């Protein structure tokens, strides 16, 4: 299962990159898929359990997590 973590800013994607790399999570930085509304050109793609990854990324504040092809699985507070 592919999960896409969407962020507001490129700098957030880079912070996520730093955190996931430190925590040995298997992930990739990829362009935001067209079917997902894009706030920023890049997002995090992982096949690991999304709840675990979301926990690691809570301080970076992702704005949404999508289950590739099956739509939104989690929405953050974007205020």
């Amino acid at each position, binding site marked *: 299962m592919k999960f896409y973590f969407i962020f507001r800013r*490129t*700098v*957030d994607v880079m*912070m996520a*990159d*730093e955190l996931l790399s430190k925590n040995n999570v298997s992930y990739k930085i990829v*362009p935001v898929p067209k079917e997902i509304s*894009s706030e*920023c050109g890049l997002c995090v793609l992982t096949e690991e359990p999304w709840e675990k990854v979301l926990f690691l990324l809570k301080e970076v504040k992702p704005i949404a997590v999508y289950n590739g092809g099956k739509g939104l699985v989690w929405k953050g507070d974007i205020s």
Partner: protein
Amino acid sequence: MGERGLSGKVIYLDNAATSFPKPKEVWDAVLNYACSIGANPGRSGHRLSVEAARLVFNCRRALAELLGVSACDRIIFTKNATEAANVVIRGLLEGVGGGNVVATCLEHNAVARPLKYWCRREDIELRVVSCSPSGEVNPKKVLEAVDESTIAVFVNHASNVFGTVTPFEDIAAFVSVPVVVDATQTLGSYPFSVGDFSNVIVVFTGHKGLLGPQGTGGFYIPEGIELDPLIRGGTGSNSESDEQPSFLPDRFESGTLNVHGIAGLLAGIRWIKSRGIENIRKHELELACLFVEAVSSVKGVDVYASGDWSRRIGVVSLNVRGRDPGVVSHILDSEYGIATRAGLHCAPWAHRALGTYPVGTVRFSFGPFNTESDVEEAVRAVKNIGEGANGC
């Protein structure tokens, strides 16, 4: 080949204008980005673009650590400190209409000119705080100039003319308005930390103490201070909207960044960290001290470097009595191969304060790659020029 006259050994004592040479690692990093990455950071999703974005992020992170702040997204890249100062000054003063700003008399034109412009335009009183005869600004005098109508305080952290440091901490701790610190001459070669101050904005350049390429610089803005950007445009974010993003750093970083420069700047910062800022400072100060001690005893030479050495950087101004500083600097270059800077150093307020306006001084500024032998050569040259001018 368009260049000429670059043969022969040069002793470079103009590090306050730009540091030279830079560590080899800086140019290796620029070349590595140019040859192996090259892409536009964050604009595309391919691996090279991601790698470029990583590089920019790592430099942001390194700068935040250097400034002693945790929020690296509040580090904004500009092309130099002047542009950074302009964003900050306009952002703070545009539309204010009335009130006053306080600035030290040691401000560089990068700050002085936009301040003068916006104060005139917005009917703001510009209060310039004077310094001691040795070029030291007393923080208490700055605080005395602040009142309930003060919009912001501008503090030159170290004078590019006299090398004196103004402790911004002793000002920021006692005011609630923004304190804009011009750290152009200190970052990388003098201990620096924003610490817990929530009212300190820092303006910096990348090509002096940080040893990065020219065309790099920026500012740090703490949470709670909102500014308008100087320019608007593409940021690689919120592309569906024709409004400028409200979030940092994108709000201030329209258009493609100077990633070649940023790659070099990151290498420069890493080099400084590996050497230790305290060690670099000690080295530069020792050379400056040695130089001042030797040239102070030369008859007919006025050295503007008295005062507390713990509050100085490796910048020394002097004059040979009866000789134009421009001529002295030219003799140093043409006859001794010593590169200095003469004149007003873009800091007319500072020269007025020390009575060296309008002719200025000859400035010697030491860097991490200078040696005691460079100092000895410079002392010998100043002695010869001084004794020649004064008929000894």
